[in-house]
């Protein structure tokens, strides 16, 4: 690992000003992505700005039709939270399926979303549930947040503070895990609310994405039969040793059907 300095601010303002003051600062949340990256010498920040002690960055609250999760909330906490389990069980299940117990005890929702790993689980939930990402300076709708592989709409030094998840009528997350990493080889979140259906797919492409054709079909008839093989063209999907793009395309259809079946109950 290269050398760096550490800064441990305890307010959002302090975190921001420390970031601005640093030559090449980087926020540190649970570290479950950033620390392995640093160990491999793939990043060289001058300063790590630790978010652990920043007040007001952790916790879950429910109000009416929304679940709000603060950025530093650990995966374990989301998985075990009764309000999340009651309102959006698919989200609790998703959180419980991230990595392993040890990773879940450290990793945070803010870190996961900011990182936008193409195989990460949370981005599928954020996108399918039409969540809003609240930062230190603005609110960003999920549809505008995930912009590319490991890329987001976040500006330099912009800090995610919380995520608002509208509570859907029904939702389900189906993950087909990569046998080595256990990240999503294909992960599919299907969410239904009023007359709207959103289908978000992670693991399969360079960045989490929605599929309009499947959404249309499911809005017509919210049942597994609406999903036909071949609805998703394989061309733009990822290909690697674990799954070709054709297989991923196939898995998406299967996972969406299974998610819908579960959501229907």
């Amino acid at each position, binding site marked *: 690992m290269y050398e760096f300095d550490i800064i441990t601010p305890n307010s959002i303002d302090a975190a921001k000003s420390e970031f601005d003051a640093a030559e090449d600062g980087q926020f540190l949340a649970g570290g479950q992505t950033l*620390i392995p990256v640093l160990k491999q010498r793939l990043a060289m920040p001058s300063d790590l700005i630790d978010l*652990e002690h920043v007040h007001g960055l952790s916790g879950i609250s429910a109000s009416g039709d929304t679940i709000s999760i603060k950025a530093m909330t650990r995966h374990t906490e989301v998985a075990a939270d009764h309000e999340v389990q009651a309102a959006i069980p698919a989200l609790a299940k998703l959180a419980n399926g991230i990595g*392993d*117990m040890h990773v879940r005890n450290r990793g945070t929702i803010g870190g996961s979303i900011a990182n936008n790993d193409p195989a990460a689980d949370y981005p599928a939930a954020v996108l399918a549930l039409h969540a809003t990402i609240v930062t230190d300076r603005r609110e960003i709708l999920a549809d505008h947040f995930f912009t590319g592989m490991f890329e987001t709409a976040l500006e330099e030094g912009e800090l995610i503070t919380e995520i608002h998840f509208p509570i859907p009528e029904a939702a389900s997350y189906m993950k087909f895990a990569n046998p080595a990493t256990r990240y999503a080889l294909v992960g599919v979140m299907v969410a239904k609310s009023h007359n709207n259906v959103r289908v978000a797919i992670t693991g399969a492409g360079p960045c989490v994405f929605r599929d309009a054709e499947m959404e249309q079909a499911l809005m017509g008839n919210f049942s597994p039969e609406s999903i036909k093989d071949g609805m998703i063209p394989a061309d733009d999907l990822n290909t690697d040793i674990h799954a070709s793009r054709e297989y991923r395309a196939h898995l998406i259809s299967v996972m969406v059907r299974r998610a819908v079946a579960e959501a229907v109950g």
Partner: protein
Amino acid sequence: MPLITVHVNGVETTKEVEPRTLLSTFIREELKLTGTHVGCDTSQCGACVVSIDGKTIKSCASFAWQFDGAKIQTIEGLANGTELHPMQEAFRTHHGLQCGFCTPGMVMTAVALVENNPDISENGIREGLEGNICRCTGYQNIIDAVKTGAKAMRG
């Protein structure tokens, strides 16, 4: 260099650490507690698992300074002198270890699994051990050990 105070297996220690010192390195090299092992560089294997304030983490994916003020338990802190913790005892009776390299992480994980869920099922154990790789045992004796350990821990 940050100065940190940690309570490791009940003993308070204050030391200076480099910002880039991993918790696993700190435990092994500064505290000389070499029971915490390092089996990989991508945080997959779980040989390095320790418990922080009752929660398990991978010490290879954390910095030492992040635990200033924390209570850390390593495998060395589990037995009471020569009296093994019930989970250690169960690993022994069930032959839940061969080379012993994954064992510290396995045992720390097993204790946490049972503390979180005293009635944990076989499937629960198998899933709960997802972050710990053992190359020697085929896991079965580990599973059986965790079941017996759970029973003993329930008392």
